[in-house]
């Protein structure tokens, strides 16, 4: 069930990146795709009913795998930085070009390079 939701999220993210004309929507799509992969990763090792990965007195019993959580924390930070850079680039492109529509931006870029 959750895997189905992840597939839906991936499709939404891909659709956002591929089919949108606005640069900001592409960045939002990328962010959604990022979140989908992160949720996918965290699902590894999660089984209903087992405990959090903290050592208490008794050492028996299964715990949730702590590695995917730690990895995905890193991946979230990295995704955040990339989104930040993307947004700043989009802001600067908008300042130069006046619009966020990818076709207009590419026309302006082609004109300035001819």
């Amino acid at each position, binding site marked *: 069930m959750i895997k189905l939701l992840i597939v839906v999220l991936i499709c939404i993210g891909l659709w956002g990146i591929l089919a949108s004309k606005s640069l900001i929507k592409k960045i939002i799509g990328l962010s959604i795709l990022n979140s989908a992969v992160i949720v996918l990763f965290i699902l590894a090792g999660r089984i209903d009913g087992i405990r959090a990965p903290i050592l208490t007195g008794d050492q028996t019993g299964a715990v949730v795998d702590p590695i995917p959580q730690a990895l995905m*924390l890193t991946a979230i*930070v990295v995704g*955040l930085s990339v989104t930040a850079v993307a947004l*700043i680039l989009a802001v600067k492109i908008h300042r130069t070009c006046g619009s966020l529509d990818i076709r207009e931006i590419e026309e302006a870029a082609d004109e300035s390079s001819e």
Partner: protein
Amino acid sequence: MRTKTDMLDVASRKIAPYVLLFGCYLISNGHLSPGGGFQGGVVLASGLVLPALGCRWERREDLLSNLSLSIGETAGFILLLFIGIIGITASGYFLADPFPATARPHAWFIVILNFAIGLKVGAGIGLLCLLLIRESLEADHD
């Protein structure tokens, strides 16, 4: 440019301290419950950003200037480096645990790390968002 309503202005400025408090809670309880340095830091940053987004131009207050956030971010990073280097002198590896194994509570090292990371992340992300927001607000009002 739509003006911001009074309700938005008052609500964002009243809620912000509680968001900041929640961020501090997440940072300090990171070793026991979901949370920790990064998550608490991001909530701290959102607590800083919320008033900037909601307040009206006439009643804006620069609670933390860009310079002080920058200093906070650098301080967090240097603190992290310092903790790591203490680890080198204690057990020979970067970020090794310098506390002896019988110290109570067991998780002192994680608490200190959470604090340093929370400071860095909160200041860093807050600075990032506030730079963009303040720049666009000034551009709109010039």
